């Protein structure tokens, strides 16, 4: 369904929305990553270099549990910034 929404957007909007979406995700993950200690950072590097999707999921849930809140905050922050720049 998500892909269906993107596919049905005019190309100009689709690429902009995808770009925004990517940035929000990366920034949120970056914030969550910074909160991890060195041991967990090393663990994350090892797991996300592997092919084990289950371990990746487990890591996201166990050590980046507050990611959802971070994503919401990042979305709010970035859209407000855009608004300020546009108006």
């Amino acid at each position, binding site marked *: 369904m998500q892909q269906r929404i993107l596919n049905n957007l005019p190309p100009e909007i689709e690429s902009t929305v995808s770009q925004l979406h990517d940035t929000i995700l*990366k920034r949120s993950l970056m914030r969550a990553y910074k909160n991890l200690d060195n041991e967990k950072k090393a663990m994350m590097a090892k797991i996300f270099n592997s092919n084990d999707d289950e371990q990746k999921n487990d890591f996201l849930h166990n050590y980046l549990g507050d990611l959802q809140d971070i994503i919401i905050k990042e979305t709010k922050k970035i*859209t407000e910034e855009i608004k300020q720049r546009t108006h």
Partner: protein
Amino acid sequence: MSFEQTPNTSNEQSKEKPPYPGWVLKNGIWRNPLEEENIKSIDENKKDSDTENPKIDDELRLTEKELKKLNNKEYLNPGDIEKKKDLEIKYNSLNKETKKESEIYQGPEKKKGEMDPLELHYKWGEVCDALKGNKDEIKVINDCLDKTPEELNVYLENNPEFSDEAKEWIKTNIEVEKEKIADFKKWEDKSVAGKEGAKKENKKETEKEGLEKEVTKRYYDELEKIEQMPDYTKKLKKRKTKKCFQLINDWKDLAYLDDYKGIQEIFSELDEPKPFTFIYNLKKAEMIDEVAIAMALNYKKWDIKDKKKLKTIKSFVNKGSEEKNFWYKSDDRDGTFKDIAQILALKDIPFKSSINVLVEDIKNPNIKSEAIAEIFEIEKETIEEKKKLLKEIKEKITEEKTPSEEETKKQFEKIGASPEIMGIFEKPELLSELFNKGSKILKNPEVQKNIQELQDSIKKATKEEEIIPDPVAKAAEFMKGGGKEKKKESLWKTSFGVMGWSILLFLVFFMLAELKGVDYLSGQTTGKKKEK
């Protein structure tokens, strides 16, 4: 002219149980090997003594010979079958006569209570009956069977009703008979266990059928309740729709039990309240897709003819695309047919005259060729690979769920969506139109100017301020579904799916609000009402 030929099963191992332990099937007739030996010995005695009844005996031999001849035939015609029946009856009757003759021959008059070896031997045959209950009748035999050789000696010596010959016979044959009985008991236990196992299986099957009927009945009861729900306000309409979606979701995996009639009734019920929200249309499209895929996944469990199954699938999917739902148009329908074809191929359903019937309905030539190529690839996969692919499809269905309107609104509120963005939910037709005619709208110079400004702002706002470490970049890729399988469509998988969905939708609405796209469509920007 040809005769009806029946395979001759007389030489195959019989599945019937022997009438007595140790009896064997010879030429299609159950026989006691010892009895045969006895008859042979009687026969030999007869030859010596000149007291035999040669007429019966010769006839018996002749009948047996004819029976053997018939039994050696590979195929029997109706005449052979009839003849075989007659011969068997004749053989049994002659056999009885021979027994009587041989009993008569046994000579000296028996004393009261005395058992001769032949009589005793016949009695052994009744042991199996005795084991089932009637022990008094052959108590003597049971007494013999229960004893050790030493005990048996004492027992026989203390029972004057046995002749010396009978005593000798018992001593010689008791162990053999014990073995036969043990074998029979094993066979009987196995047979009983088998029967009980089959009974249990049948019971399980009946219980399962009962449960399935009960479940289907409950779903129908629930549907009846939904049908009676009032829908004269927007809120009530939404409540009713939510219940319909819930019931479709709960029922879809067992709906093959009533040939998807109930679930199609819910879809008709859904058309009544139609709350006209953005999420409603998306959710309905998702539901059409999911039910169609459930039809494919449960294809083999669905107990009707293939032709009827394919007809039901086709009619359901086509009906879904005929409605004016922006999110379920011709290409979406083609996509559903492609997915179904893929699932059926993974389930080894033949392409010719089955999958092909669905592929033929795909109108978009690109989707059609993709579907055929996929099926071609699937046919080359191993069983394990097919299973893996099916599992992935099932997982994808569970992952990709459009959240409810309430959930989405809650997320929007958390993000701090403006009343303008929140209001977009209430204008699904305008939104659909925007998606439909987006490119045309963007050609408007005023909108083009807006989009340019917005894109510049976004570019500045999304400019990376710091270097993204490798684990973060990889985690982002994984969450977007671009891990080891680049083909995955889901934008944000795992349980962040709902969150990703809401964010995506929010961003689309945000863009629209910033571009004044909805205002443009409703004519508010130009001061004119949009022409229909």
